[in-house]
Structure formats: C-alpha cells, structure tokens
C-alpha cells in the first residue's frame, strides 16, 4: 500500500531548497541521507579562495521510497556556488550511481541544478563530470533507470547539461533551463549581439522548459509543483531503456532531422512556427495544461 501522505500539493519546485525537494518528492519520512552534513565531508579547495564550504558540498544524496518503490536520490543545491561540481560533490554523485548497480533500486533520481564544472576546482570538476557520465551509463546498462529532474533558478548547464541528456528521461518545469554554455558565458565571450543574456524572454525561448519539451530534449513538462514532478517521476520509472544500437540510431536520425529542419532558425519562435504551431508567440504566455494541449501534435520525437 503506497504512502499517500507522501504527497504535498502546492510547493514550488523552483523555490525549494535541494533538501526540501527531496523530502517533498519522496514518500514521507522515507529519506535516509548518505554522507550527511554531520560527516563534514567538505571541499578542501575553497578555503584558500575565501569561499565558505557547505557541509554537503552542494549535493545531498541518499535513499528513500517513491510510491513505495526503493530509489536512490541526489539533489544539487543551486544556491551553493551555482550547484557547480567539484571533487567531493562529483564523487558523491558518482558513488551514488555506482551504488545503484549493487543495490538495484527501482530508479536513481537526479535533481539537477548546476552550472557545470566548479571553476575553483576546475580540473577536478571536469574529470568528476566525465566520471559521472560514465557511471550513469553503466548504471543504465545494468537495467536501472536514471531520471533527471530540472527546475531550479540556476538551471542545468555546462557538463551537467551533457549528464542530463545521458539520463533515461528528463522532467522539467517551465522555469527550468537546460543547455551547455550559459547565456551569460556566451554573451561574455561572443558579445551581446550573439546572445543578450539579460533578455529573459529570449533566454527561455532558447533553453527554457517549454522549448526543450517541444524539441524532444525532455520527455515531460510539468507545473512548478513538487507533486507534479513526483507524479511524472513515478510514471517514467518503467519507461527506461538501456542503451542499444537501435535506440541510438533512432536518436541519431531525430537529431539529424532536427538540424535539417531547424538548423537555419535563429530563434525559438522560428522553430515553433516551422513545427506548424499557430500563433507561436502565444506559447510562452500559456499555462502548462493549455500549452500541452496546443502542442500535442507538434512535439518532436521523444528521444
């Protein structure tokens, strides 16, 4: 009998801390933290740069239950250094993914909120992210689904944007952003003409939740409510597939078609228009239920 008291309605995923996302996503009181804050496993690389540590090094990991199924879970705290990945943070995530191969939970849930490599520990962070990618794919190959949830203020960028797209499925809210180079990084290096990172509407048309859903980069678009993320996670657990030649060939075809169809487009709105959506300029203004109805027949092949 699943624990229905685990459902909390009306809690914004976007506003929540990494810790409260876990407690409201999982079944009540089921979360058991691994390497909790009392262990004081912090980064040794920050003191010399005048940066305070966090007792979790910006990521909370552990086990719990989702609709009575055992899961392993990791939640990145965007508020701490933008959720960026350093040596300790990365090792916690890699260790969790490797633990899954032994423990065989129903799924691994990754609550992703990160700017990518933590520059204060740049080399260690880059290698760590590569280790996460390898571990994630090994976990999937062992038959354990890995689901990514995206929806906080800091988005999911850098190497973690690549990690995200290695997951079986991604669940995102409208507020969520998913990409590789952050708009501000592109603006700083290529100039404001290339990307005006202060133009919020432009940013969301480019890397935001609704656009990613339309492109087929994410499988689920949900309301900004932890309960909605929970429902979507439960639904997606059994849709997971290990890598196969067939699935990668399908993905290859879809990505080639996407480039062929939209490679000349300069703005999300041009893409939505080409997809055959009437009044594409209205899409950013719609609430999620209306949006999902309007775009139902236009969403590109789910990958």
């Amino acid at each position: 009998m699943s624990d229905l008291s685990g459902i909390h309605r009306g809690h914004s995923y976007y506003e929540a801390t990494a810790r409260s996302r876990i407690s409201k996503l999982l079944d009540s009181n089921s979360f058991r933290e691994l390497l909790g804050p009392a262990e004081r496993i912090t980064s040794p690389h920050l003191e010399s740069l005048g940066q305070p540590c966090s007792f979790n090094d910006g990521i909370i990991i552990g086990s719990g239950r989702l609709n009575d199924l055992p899961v392993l879970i990791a939640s990145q705290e965007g508020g701490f250094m933008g959720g960026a990945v350093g040596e300790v943070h990365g090792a916690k995530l890699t260790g969790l993914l490797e633990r899954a191969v032994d423990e065989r939970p129903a799924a691994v849930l990754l609550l992703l909120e990160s700017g990518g490599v933590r520059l204060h520990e740049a080399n260690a962070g880059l290698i760590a992210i590569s280790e996460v990618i390898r571990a994630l794919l090994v976990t999937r190959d062992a038959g354990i689904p890995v689901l990514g949830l995206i929806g906080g203020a800091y988005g999911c960028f850098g190497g973690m944007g690549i990690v995200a797209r290695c997951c079986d499925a991604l669940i995102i809210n409208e507020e969520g952003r998913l990409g590789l180079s952050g708009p501000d990084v592109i603006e700083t290096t290529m100039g404001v003409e290339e990307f005006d990172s202060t133009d919020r509407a432009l940013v969301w048309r480019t890397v935001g939740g609704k656009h990613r859903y339309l492109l087929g980069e994410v499988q689920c678009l949900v309301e900004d409510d932890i309960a909605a993320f929970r429902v979507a996670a439960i639904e997606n657990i059994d849709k997971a597939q290990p890598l196969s030649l067939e699935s990668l060939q399908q993905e290859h075809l879809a990505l080639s078609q996407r480039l062929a169809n939209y490679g000349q487009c300069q703005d999300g709105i041009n893409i939505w228009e080409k997809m055959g959506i009437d009044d594409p300029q209205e899409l950013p203004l719609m609430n999620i239920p209306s949006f999902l109805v309007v775009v139902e027949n236009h969403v590109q092949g789910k990958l």
Partner: protein
Amino acid sequence: MEHLKFEFKGSVRQQGCQQTTLVGVVSSGNLEVMLENVDLDGLCRINVSTSAQGFAEIWQAVLNDFVARYNLADLQISINDGGATPAVVCLRLDQAMEEYLETST
C-alpha cells in the same frame, strides 16, 4: 575566511536525543546552520566559518541573544556563513532550533 569559536554554559538539559538538524544554504547573504547533540560537559559551543571578516563582535552579540532564548546544554552549532546580516543569522538560528527540538526521540 575567518573561523570563530564561541562557548556558553548551557543551562537547559536536552529532553531525549535530538537528530542532527541542518537549515539554510551557503550563498551570498545566507548561511548554513547545523545543530548537533554532542557531549560537551554541559556547554553550548558555536563554530562559525565566515567569508565576511572582522565581525566577531557582532557574532558575539547575536549569539548572546540566541543563548538568552535557547540555552541548551551539550549543543554544538556549526555555521558556514556567506556574509548574512545579523537578522538573517537570527532567523536561521531560530529556524534550526525549532526544527531541532521537534526531532527529539
């Protein structure tokens, strides 16, 4: 970075065993507060790591205030601070303490 240590004689015995509590986030203007039940021979000890240097006196004042409200014995408070204002520090300490007291087993 500055590392400060404060100690008070705790006067209130803890009822039952509380679980480690953590509130807050280490970001600019914010802080992380962790409360633990530790055998300190009745003391309340507070460790502060902060990126805002030179505010030892203000920390003392804030903590004096806090201890006047909750003077728990055998309590270890650990803080990672990203330059929060005294008001935010007070808020987090109170939040942490409320949660901590709820966890008694």
